[in-house]
């Protein structure tokens, strides 16, 4: 998302800084507004604080965590699981997606199997992962992979299918080998597809790690959240979610960074209509 915009004036139009600053301002205003809304509604019991917590204790908890030391271990574990799930899942999905996208017969045969796997409730797989991968990080990574994989896979597959036939024909005439074709045409052409799915799956990788920990673990943010939930400590639950969210945004920011590097050639289109 994001991407700068402004009306499609030829050339060096309005100063872009003010536009960006305005966005940050609105975001900040929205954030403060949300916190105020949250604080007021829970304070006056319009929303039950039993379920929604209250902003001050939540922030207090976050602060306490980071003044202490224990949180770093938990957070580190969760981040590690997330990163592994994200990277392994995305890479696997790209390989399989490319392969099936370029292989009509294989994709036609595999089609129902992949869809079936995607429709399987992953939570049910958790015990099996525990058997295979133990109760350590790898069973959580596996759960995350099952979430990340399908999202990226379907987009890579479709992205490959959408590549302009003329571009492919041209590259082949220029002597590109199959590998070069993939590297120089299919992959760049599918980048928007891939990145769109990467944005979705950053979140999913976190969900996988946390839910995995939630279902069984000895540490990690999901473990903390699970424990707090067991004793109705909703403020700690929300503090955990808040911390996770911030890190998800950071990871997503990294994805965006890579994206803008790889995708810098794009024309800045104007969709706002005059």
């Amino acid at each position: 998302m994001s991407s700068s915009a402004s009306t499609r004036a030829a050339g060096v139009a309005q100063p872009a800084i003010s536009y960006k600053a305005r966005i940050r301002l609105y975001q900040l205003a929205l954030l403060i507004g949300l916190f105020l809304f949250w604080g007021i509604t829970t304070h006056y019991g319009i929303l039950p604080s039993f379920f929604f917590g209250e902003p001050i204790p939540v922030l207090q908890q976050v602060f306490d965590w980071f003044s202490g030391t224990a949180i770093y271990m938990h957070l580190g574990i969760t981040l590690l699981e997330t990163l592994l799930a994200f990277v392994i899942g995305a890479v696997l999905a790209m390989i399989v997606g490319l392969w099936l996208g370029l292989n009509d017969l294989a994709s036609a045969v595999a089609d129902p199997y992949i869809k079936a796997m995607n429709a399987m409730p992953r939570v049910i797989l958790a015990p099996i992962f525990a058997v295979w991968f133990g109760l350590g990080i790898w069973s959580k990574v596996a759960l995350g992979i099952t979430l990340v994989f399908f999202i990226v896979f379907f987009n890579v597959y479709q992205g490959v299918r959408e590549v302009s036939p003329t571009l492919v024909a041209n590259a082949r005439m220029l002597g590109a080998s199959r590998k070069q074709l993939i590297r120089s045409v299919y992959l760049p052409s599918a980048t928007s597809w891939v990145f769109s799915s990467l944005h979705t799956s950053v979140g999913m990788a976190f969900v996988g790690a946390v839910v995995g920990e939630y279902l069984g673990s000895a540490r990690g943010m999901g473990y903390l959240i699970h424990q707090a939930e067991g004793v109705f400590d909703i403020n700690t639950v929300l503090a955990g979610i808040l911390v996770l969210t911030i890190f998800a945004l950071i990871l997503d920011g990294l994805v965006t960074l890579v994206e803008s590097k790889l995708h810098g050639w794009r024309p800045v289109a104007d969709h706002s209509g005059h």
Partner: protein
Amino acid sequence: ESNLEQTKVSIAVGGKTLFYYLPLTIAEQKGFFKEEGLEVEISDLSGGSKALQALVGGSADVVSGSYEHTISMQAKGQDIVAFVVEGNAPGIVLGVAKNKADKITSAKDLKGLNIGVTAPGSSTHMYVKTLLVKAGLSPDDISAIGVGAGAGAVAALEHGEVDAVANLDPVIAKLEADDAIKVMYDTRTKAGVDEVYGGDYHAAVLYTKASYLHDNPHTSQALANAIVHALKWMASATPEEIVNTVPEAYYGGDKALYTAALKANLGSYSKTGEFSKEATEHVLAVLKAFDEKVQKATIDLSKTYDDQFAKAAQSAVK
């Protein structure tokens, strides 16, 4: 003491913060495992059945779980053996919503109602079935709704989604504190257990595979020692001392509620960690009534527990 076969033990538990498993936490927090030369890692899973699966699958060595599982696993051909008792009362409470309490006074009145259990097929579900059968009803006369053992259970009752709940602390404590339920059957106390089951009943135990006990007798002994140690300490400690021992995360800011719930549960813990034949038979009777697999199988109760470790622990732990 380097006669331990292994010093690193992984224990799985389904809901570490539950009062049901409090002796485990005490043993961990007071360092009783360390005293025995053990380094335990306690993995918290989303339910007792998940903990059992972790054991069967080999990712956990020992489970802090319900004694029932050893019986139902024997019916499925798995040799699971309990070797030290943590609690002798399931701690399950059946409470009805306050606003309906005047119409529902006994198990008979439950007919046709929505009753919240932690999960369909779980021990809370079986508990409700037991009560129904005792009252001359059929287990299908109610609809059991899985509401979990967390905030969802509280909400379900308080919002009228269910008319009654069979649940554990802290759900019950929270509902009592909110004055939302009237307790009807309470197995947190000896009296309550006797009323429902007609005598002693083994609840939380440490169990493991028979082969593990066989291969790791010293390690198993050390585990039993630590639990018995914890039980003895709990028997002599004040509720406040216990509360101060558990991690802060257990009471999540509401210490008073936790203390109140603890007091209600103190009677449920075993004093010695030892088994009694009678208690195991009560458990079997309940399972026989509702578990098809157990019904069909012939169960050899003596293979479901091994009392020697707990017995030996009495002398080991002063």
